[in-house]
């Protein structure tokens, strides 16, 4: 940066936070300048969110100092932080479900006279919407929105606060590439206005392209802070993980011969947001679903897994028509699904790691309904080690695990069952680069062992790089298919944005 040295917005000095036996932050010192986009990277559990939450007033540090705009703060909570202009977009979506989009966005910042609300909510919302351009309906209750849209609401909520410092903790984890780009534009716009943005993300390319400075964290400590221009992706990765990691996608497993009978098929399935879908997955094949957010990929997966009713069409598993579909029946047939919302749909946060992993497989670890806990522990310990879940405690409290480690626990849960069909809905959301490459490796191994995989991801590189075949999804139907090898992100995007959608029936696998 040129010109006069910019003023310091936030300084933290020797900040430490300890949770039980975990030292989440260990004497962290860092300064954030006014008008900079400051990248914060590190592997899962490095302490990024914890740092953000301390700055945002959600957590109290055990020791250390916090200085905001030159003033040392002592009592610090979300309210005081917001009054000082510090706002955080938490990693885990945190909205009031029954309130509308606009109400959520301006929550706590309502205009009022003697406590009586003004009627200008919609006008204010429109103003903000002009800046963001997300196109969300102001009056929809947020619980009716897909996750990605909820994330946009979170972003708008932070903007609505006219903050001088915004901590964005993985704001793009459910956004598609173009929406992420919108956010990056917003960041630049904020920077011009002198706002400080802390950008926590696992997308290192985004960090390098959009941040002024980058701080790398590992094990609760700051490794280094440097101008983004001086960093490289490989350098960041090595600093994060303490060792260089091969970031190339693994090779696809060999595709099954085309005449292999499919393990699962959908024939013109309709129901809810699914409007006529046909596809098939063969054993050992990785089939990707590419689509924009809200295109209905999750709905397709849920219909296949039996969570949502199928109104017409047919689902076949190993050639047999599926009747009386339910998650239970699907699991019994040999399917498994890692849902997109790991906290709401995947994990029982109140129960320890062990119980979460074995939940669908208790039949195996019990006789006449009585559990054999030794067998359970042995099986789970093996998986936890294989997947590198951290902390590696079987009785660990998953609710406080970092996002990436929660995702690994979910993988462990379904890998215990050796499914014939594995549905993965955003399997690497919020996962660090190291873990990501381990998950890719896993996907490939699982497929190589003969499991059919249906892969849904908003990271088109993943879909393009791992799938044998890719279905393009729009408006709840499959609008086309491209072979995986040779597919490019740009090519996929172009097809997805095609103005004139072909008729739904064209989507033959």
């Amino acid at each position: 940066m040129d010109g006069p040295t910019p003023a310091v917005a936030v300084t933290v000095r020797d900040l430490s936070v300890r949770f039980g036996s975990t030292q989440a932050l260990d004497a962290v010192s860092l300064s954030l300048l006014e008008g900079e986009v400051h990248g914060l990277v590190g592997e899962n559990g490095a302490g990024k969110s914890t740092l953000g939450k301390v700055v945002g007033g959600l957590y109290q540090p055990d020791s250390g100092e916090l200085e905001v705009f030159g003033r040392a703060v002592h009592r610090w909570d979300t309210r005081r932080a917001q009054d000082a202009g510090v706002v955080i977009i938490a990693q885990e979506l945190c909205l009031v479900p029954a309130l509308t989009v606009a109400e959520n966005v301006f929550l706590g910042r309502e205009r009022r006279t003697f406590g009586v609300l003004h009627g200008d909510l919609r006008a204010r919302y429109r103003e903000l919407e002009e800046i963001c351009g997300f196109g969300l309906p102001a009056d929809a209750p947020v619980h009716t929105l897909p996750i990605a849209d909820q994330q946009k609401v979170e972003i708008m909520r932070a903007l609505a606060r006219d903050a001088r410092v915004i901590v964005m903790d993985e704001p793009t984890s459910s956004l598609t590439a173009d929406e992420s780009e919108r956010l990056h534009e917003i960041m630049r716009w904020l920077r011009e206005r002198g706002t400080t943005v802390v950008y926590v993300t696992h997308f290192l390319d985004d960090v390098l392209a959009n941040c002024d400075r980058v701080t790398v964290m590992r094990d609760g400590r700051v490794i280094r802070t440097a101008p983004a221009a001086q960093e490289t992706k490989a350098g960041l990765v090595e600093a994060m993980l303490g060792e260089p990691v091969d970031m190339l996608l693994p090779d696809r497993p060999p595709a099954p011969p085309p005449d292999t009978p499919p393990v699962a098929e959908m024939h013109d399935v309709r129901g809810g947001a699914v409007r006529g879908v046909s596809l098939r997955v063969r054993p050992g094949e990785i089939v990707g679903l590419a689509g924009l957010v809200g295109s209905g990929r999750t709905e397709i997966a849920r219909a296949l897994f039996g969570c949502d009713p199928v109104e017409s069409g047919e689902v076949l598993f190993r050639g047999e028509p599926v009747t009386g579909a339910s998650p239970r029946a699907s699991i019994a047939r040999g399917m498994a699904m890692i849902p997109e919302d790991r906290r709401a749909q995947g994990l029982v946060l109140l129960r320890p790691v062990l119980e979460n992993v074995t939940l669908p497989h208790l039949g195996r670890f019990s006789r006449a309904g009585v559990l054999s806990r030794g067998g359970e522990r042995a099986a789970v310990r093996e998986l936890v080690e294989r997947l590198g879940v951290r902390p590696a405690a079987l009785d660990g409290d998953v609710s406080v695990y970092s996002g990436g480690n929660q995702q690994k626990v979910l993988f462990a849960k379904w890998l215990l069952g050796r499914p014939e069909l594995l549905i993965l809905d955003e399997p690497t959301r919020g996962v660090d680069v190291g873990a990501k490459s381990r998950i890719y490796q896993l996907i490939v191994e699982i497929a190589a062992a003969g499991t059919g995989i249906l892969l849904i991801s908003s990271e088109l590189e993943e879909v393009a790089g791992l799938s044998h075949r890719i279905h393009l999804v729009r408006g709840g139907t499959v609008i086309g298919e491209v072979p995986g090898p040779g597919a490019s992100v740009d090519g996929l995007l172009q097809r997805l944005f095609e103005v004139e959608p072909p008729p739904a029936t064209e989507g033959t696998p």
Partner: protein
Amino acid sequence: MTATAQARAGSGVNVPALVRHYAVLIMLVALFVALSVSTSSFLTLTNLLNILNQNAPLAIIAVAGTLVVICGGFDLSTGAIFSVANVVAAWVALHLNSPVLGLIAAPLAGAALGLVNGAAITRLRIHSFLATLASSLVYGGLAVLITGGFLISVPAGGFTALGRGGIGPVYYAIVILALFALLSGFLLNRTTFGRYVLSVGGNAEAAELSGIRVNRIKLYTFLYSGLAAGIAAAIGVSRIGTGQPQAGDGMQLLAIAAVILGGTSIYGGVGAIWRSVCGVYLLALIDNGFDILNANPFFKDLTTGVVILAAVALSVASRRR
């Protein structure tokens, strides 16, 4: 119900949604019509005013209780607060020889006890279900101690004006209920306080993140609930002219039943004041019906149970597709 199913249910305005929303009103109207045709004594101004008047104290408690439940809490102490407030009113009226002071003392005492509830819940971070269960025992004991276990009879005169008098044929109690319900509805829907109540009940963490003082909002709802119980007690004690330490026994459960019957979620975040009032009067109509039809009281509880189930089933059936 899963979140997605909920999401699905939440979209668009259609007949099932209306039924769900208005189930309690529909039941109320149905019972109203049934009673009107089955006996001529039902549909008279006096009877209707009586029903409204009789249950106004309970309805006032349920109105404030709606805010508590929407905010994610439970107030099981309103009955005990009613008891304390009603003996305090009688005590003050008798010993300070001022009916007016007595009647003013009740809401004040109620608000004070509600404040204690709120402080205990937010300071000690106890769940309100347990905290108010405990405080209801404490308050109940307090009411008995104030009276020494006896009744406090206030000589008639000004003291009974509030409970027995009215504006024309309309009892004051009805007027107070109407005002209180309107005020509460306004608070809930048109003020930042109401917005915060909804958000704290809907997702306390999100509210906290938005800079809302979650504890303070919770505290206010319990204060409000205590105040309402105090107002109800003023009406009740004035009607009877006697402070009784057991006067409020069981009211808290009826009030909560009415709130939930009105469709307010016990998980908080959503609800409506008017539906709780409908809930109170749905239960009241059953009572009234049994009395004026001279039906066998053995069947009253049974009927009440069935009506509640029917109302809820109606609202739930419409949720299916």
